[in-house]
């Protein structure tokens, strides 16, 4: 009698569920393996991707995704479920197939702690003395690449010093150094291919340097002269190069993160063997764009590398005022993104991690998060004096003691690939090139007035043309009021 009653009500329930096309729940009864197998065949949350009926409603599969994905659809019970099997025991739900997947229940009221006792470990292969911590055979880096890496790190260092001084002398209006982050800049660039699109924040000129941007081109941008790729429209350090697949720096913080996701989406659509990479700081990770960019890249399975330069400071805001999670690496898990924490002062670790991340991103079509821990050894920019908010000896400790350039040099020298003489030659060579580049850039004319109005649109519209003509006439009438090194 009881059995009959149960099965009848069950029928009613099922009928209602079917007719209203509700999202039905999954019931797993671990005591009845037969029921289990019957039921599990209806629940399509396995790793394979079976085709689903349209009115299942919640499923979506990207045709181009090669990796398996879990679909969180539950299908309404069909007629051939054995009613009697279900009704023999009152099913005890151990877990439930909620939208989003199966979840196990527990009677323990346990809040996960906001922080774990131990922080995520940091991947490092070169210790502070430049000694390899792993077997050198497992290192996949050639002498040519390693030497170029070191060479470019030195170039970057010298470039920063000289351009910074040029700003202090009043020759350029603004500059931003990369002191302490040379390894991040160069090593990450070295591990990528030239086809990978780079979406920088602003502290990554080393990536451009690696790809072939010349010192003269840097200088032209800083002086905003007519040879600048950006036609003198952006303030210093806002480099960009279509040829080198380095998207022009935009001052807004973290807006490049969704751009990188969108570009990865376009690569995915066109099935290219390339990925995108975007850089941002610890401060940038607080923005809304970071959150949505990471979240969405995971949903879309886009081949993008999120490289966070956690250098401990966002202008004057220390990391402890910026966030309370274990850095940024733990956030990857929150979005379902594979992540790694890397020693940002270790060129080899960065190279190796980015190399691997790129492979992962392209082959598995997944985003990857890399957090490089380091220290911003310079000021935020030439508009900042960081001794105002942090002790000078702390800066010194990092700048000298954890210096990524020195560390890598030790390793390169120990391999017999570099020595003092080559070093001093290289440094003085770069200094000379730089001073020549600066002098040349200074002398070059500024962009003409026409460059003020074109490129706002693809073709100059009538109203801008009128404005330009009117401005030209005005300047021609009053030449003494306007600088002479601008072509009208």
């Amino acid at each position, binding site marked *: 009698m009881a059995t009959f009653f149960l099965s009848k009500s069950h029928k009613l329930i099922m009928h209602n569920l079917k007719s209203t096309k509700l999202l039905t729940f999954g019931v797993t009864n671990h005591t009845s393996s037969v029921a289990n197998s019957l039921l599990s065949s209806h629940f399509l949350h396995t790793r394979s991707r079976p085709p689903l009926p349209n009115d299942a409603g919640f499923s979506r599969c990207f045709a181009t995704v090669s990796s398996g994905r879990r679909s969180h659809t539950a299908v309404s019970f069909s007629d051939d479920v054995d009613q009697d099997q279900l009704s023999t025991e009152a099913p005890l739900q151990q877990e439930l197939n909620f939208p989003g997947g199966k979840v196990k229940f527990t009677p323990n009221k346990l809040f996960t702690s906001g922080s774990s006792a131990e922080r995520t470990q940091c991947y490092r292969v070169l210790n502070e003395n430049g000694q390899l911590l792993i077997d050198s055979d497992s290192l996949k880096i050639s002498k040519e690449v390693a030497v170029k890496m070191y060479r470019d790190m030195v170039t970057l260092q010298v470039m920063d010093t000289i351009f910074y001084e040029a700003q202090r002398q009043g020759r350029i209006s603004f500059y931003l150094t990369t002191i302490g982050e040379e390894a991040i800049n160069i090593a990450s660039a070295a591990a990528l291919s030239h086809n990978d*699109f780079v979406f920088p924040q602003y502290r990554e000129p080393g990536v451009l340097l690696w790809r072939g941007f010349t010192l003269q081109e840097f200088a032209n941008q800083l002086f905003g002269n007519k040879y600048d790729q*950006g036609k003198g429209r952006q303030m210093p350090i806002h480099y960009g190069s279509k040829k080198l697949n380095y998207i022009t720096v935009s001052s*807004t913080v973290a*807006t490049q993160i969704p751009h990188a996701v*969108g570009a990865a989406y376009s690569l995915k659509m066109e099935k290219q063997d390339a990925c995108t990479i975007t850089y941002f700081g610890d401060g940038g990770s607080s923005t809304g764009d970071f959150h949505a960019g990471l979240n969405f890249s995971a949903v879309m399975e886009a081949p993008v590398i999120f490289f966070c330069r956690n250098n401990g400071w966002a202008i004057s805001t220390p990391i402890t005022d910026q966030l309370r999670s274990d850095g940024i690496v733990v956030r990857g898990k929150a979005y379902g993104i594979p992540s790694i924490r890397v020693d940002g002062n270790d060129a080899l670790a960065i190279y190796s991690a980015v190399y691997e991340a790129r492979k992962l991103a392209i082959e598995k079509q997944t985003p990857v998060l890399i957090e490089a821990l380091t220290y911003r050894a310079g000021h935020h920019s030439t508009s900042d004096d960081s001794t105002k908010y942090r002790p000078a000896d702390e800066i010194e400790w990092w700048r000298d003691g954890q210096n990524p350039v020195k560390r890598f040099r030790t390793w390169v020298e120990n391999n017999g690939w570099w020595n003092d003489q080559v070093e001093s030659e290289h440094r003085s060579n770069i200094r000379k090139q730089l001073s020549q580049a600066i002098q040349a850039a200074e002398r070059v004319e500024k962009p003409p007035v026409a460059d003020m109005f074109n490129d706002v*649109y693809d073709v100059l519209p009538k109203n801008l043309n009128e404005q330009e003509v009117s401005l030209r006439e005005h300047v021609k009438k009053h030449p003494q009021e306007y600088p002479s090194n601008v072509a009208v």
Partner: protein
Amino acid sequence: MASIFQGVGAATSLDTKKFQLSSLRSVTGRKASCVVMRSGGAKMDGGSNQISGRADQLVTNAVATKADTPAASTASKPGHELLLFEALREGLEEEMERDARVCVMGEDVGHYGGSYKVTKGLAEKYGDLRVLDTPIAENSFTGMGIGAAMTGLRPIIEGMNMGFLLLAFNQISNNCGMLHYTSGGQFKIPVVIRGPGGVGRQLGAEHSQRLESYFQSIPGIQMVACSTPYNAKGLMKAAIRSDNPVILFEHVLLYNLKERIPDEEYVLNLEEAEMVRPGEHVTILTYSRMRYHVMQAAKTLVNKGYDPEVIDIRSLKPFDLYTIGNSIKKTHRVLIVEECMRTGGIGASLTAAITENFHDYLDAPIMCLSSQDVPTPYAGTLEEWTVVQPPQIVAAVEQLCR
């Protein structure tokens, strides 16, 4: 109803040549041009459906197809009837078919087909990747669209409601509008940002925003507003083909407008205004939904003996000062009817542009009817009084023509 709104363009192209002959700035010249106008075909209507390309001052970014076909009335070509949202979809689909780089992204655009069904059926046809459902993060998926555009795609970003695009303002202003310029022309951003806006039927303040003017100042973007199925499809296609970022404003209440549009392919010019009803006494400039209020008022006005010239400006940035100017030189009186707010609205900006350029031709101060400077109330009657109603338009014309 439909046939009135098909009276387009051919009149203006004829005017072009005649205008260049007459001198523009003297009083005599003015009179002469009026005469020329009247005989030249100002009364032409129901002419060709196609805006023939005018190879003169205005930069025609969009291809005006079949410019050389003679003006033919709709009656001879059957065409097909559809609703405005279907016209948008047709335009979108044609472009997606034509160019594999065109893709759509937005909330619920995929299998749901879009909240106003503009993208219905496209996900099934082109796949989930090309018609992409995004999470609720307008700033970020607009950013995504910009990034995709910079690296080769041509995305159409749908805002579920234009009001939500306020969240995307950072990306639209700082990156969309700027990056082509600041990168020295290296990276272009051929995105189309579209969605419904305007005051609907009791949708509440947040969903009834008229915020075209918020975007108007952003350098680097273009803005158009569609109002009929014909121009909706044409503008959609033009916007997609344009290499500039274009914001296409649709209106919630116009999606179910029915009209017969041509079977053959056509693309409209993004910077051209549409002559809705040629006239003599007063120039009424309007766009989007207010066009219909104006035409309703026009009926009343005609009965009262007035002859208003109605122009749907369509291009909100830049203004088609050519068409507008021609009209002002003829009628010498301007009334702007818009749904945007009084303060800092499109009308305010248009008033300034007209005053600057055509002050000498005005016989009366420019009148601008805009909606009230209030958040749109929910109550039906209050909502109605927030926007401009036909009786107000009639009264304004009567005042102007005194």
